């Protein structure tokens, strides 16, 4: 299948590259590559998508996309040579696998069509990454995402405040309000029968240009049981726990740093899934309000009932604000 090169000559492309890229980074030659196979697209190549030339830079790594700092060969940073904007190009990479939490095993899939669908659904909504979907030359859905410059929520929260009390009194209230906005965004997905699929603190980025937090990475899906959104809610609980604790408060950490607090804990105080994480944070930090702690305890071993709908979580958070 022939690849799209548009009307651009190599001379045109080099002129455009020079406009956006420091001189020392401008290659001597530039090749326009077919978009059908991401393995053939390398650093310094150009791909043309929807008549727009993109100058390809590095593959993305986790922290932003994917897992454990591995290179994602199908996710490449690129510069739109018409506007100079940095974009993330995400090729189709289908993956079906079993996720494991303790003894529990469940089917998961990486689905480009799911991400394409959600990108369309959340277009213009500031709590989500933005982008559009085009077809590569093989007819697959390639997503062109706006690059979000900023830190993940997982990086932001632990850096705030001099200690937990300072953090909790002076920074956490604003973060909690931001978190509520993020939960409302997930409710929007759920209201449209869509899951996020991979909710975790690394999938929320504070956009430096706007100061708002945005959800990223919508291509995961899990095979749900009776509760369609239970796994998403579990993810939201983990993020809230992390924010409230200014990081993960683990039994191991407490044992080393605060053995007295550790002695106050019972088996009921830990996370229902991760038994080394403490959910009953009020026992560690007594100034945490009861209403907020009660929300955290919905995700603890001792919880008699669980959240099934995002709205239930939002209602309780509303009382805790």
């Amino acid at each position, binding site marked *: 299948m022939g690849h799209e090169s548009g009307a651009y000559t190599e001379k045109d492309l080099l002129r455009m590259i020079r406009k956006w890229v420091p001189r020392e980074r401008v290659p001597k030659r530039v090749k326009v590559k077919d978009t059908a196979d991401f393995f053939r697209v390398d650093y310094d190549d150009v791909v043309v998508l929807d008549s727009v030339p993109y100058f390809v830079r590095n593959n993305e790594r986790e922290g932003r996309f994917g897992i454990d700092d591995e290179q994602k060969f199908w996710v490449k940073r690129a510069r739109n040579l018409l506007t100079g904007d940095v974009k993330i190009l995400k090729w189709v990479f*289908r993956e*079906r696998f079993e996720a494991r*939490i*303790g*003894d*529990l095993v*469940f*089917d998961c*899939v990486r*689905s480009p*069509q*799911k991400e394409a669908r959600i990108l369309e659904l959340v277009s213009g909504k500031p709590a989500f990454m933005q982008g559009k979907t085009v077809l590569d030359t093989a007819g697959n859905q390639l997503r062109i995402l706006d690059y979000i410059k900023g830190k993940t929520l997982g990086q932001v929260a632990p850096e705030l405040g001099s200690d937990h009390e300072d953090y909790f009194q002076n920074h956490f209230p604003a973060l909690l309000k931001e978190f509520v906005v993020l939960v409302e965004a997930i409710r929007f997905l759920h209201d449209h029968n869509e899951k996020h699929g991979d909710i975790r603190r690394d999938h929320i980025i504070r956009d430096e240009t706007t100061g708002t937090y945005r959800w990223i990475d919508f291509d995961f*899906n899990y*095979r*749900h*049981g*009776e*509760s*369609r959104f*239970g*796994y998403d809610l*579990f993810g939201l609980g983990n993020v809230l726990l992390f924010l409230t604790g200014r990081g993960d408060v683990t039994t191991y950490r407490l044992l080393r740093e605060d053995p007295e607090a550790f002695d106050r804990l019972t088996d009921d105080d830990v996370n*229902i*899934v991760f038994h080394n994480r403490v959910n009953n944070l009020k026992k560690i930090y007594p100034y945490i309000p009861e209403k907020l702690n009660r929300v955290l305890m919905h*995700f603890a*071993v001792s*919880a008699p009932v*669980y959240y*099934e709908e995002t709205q239930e979580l939002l209602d309780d958070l509303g009382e805790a604000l």
Partner: protein
Amino acid sequence: MDTQPENPVKDKHLLIAVDESDSSRRAVLYVADFLGGFPGFQISLLSIIPEPEQDFYETEAELKAWVEEKTAKANALLEHYRTILVQSGFPEEKVRFHACVGDAKSLSDAILAIRCDLTCCTVVVGRHHKTKTEEFLFGSTSNRLIHEAKNCAVWVVE
């Protein structure tokens, strides 16, 4: 004029929702043991194949093949359970079965919708012995049935 109704006593209609699990088998055996041979009962066996999301399949054909395979398996299972119930004393014409792809929000919603359509007075399910983590992450159909069912009884068989 002497008019006798043809069916003076209406059958009690039970809906047994099953899947391939042992707990479903226990539910069927319980009903067979408890009510088999008694008159006045009608049974509908139901197997709902959870609607698969298109995201898990690359093509429509792949999805269709999956549904066909699951439907065939469900029908074979239902036929087997029907035989058990008939052998326990239910008249053949009083035991029917139905397999379908559930397009409702959840399995419990689908079961309750069908119960309503068939006007069954009782829903019978087996209790899956899920871990707390599993129930937390993916929910429990029997728990939800107990909470959501209206105008009917729910039997959850251990």
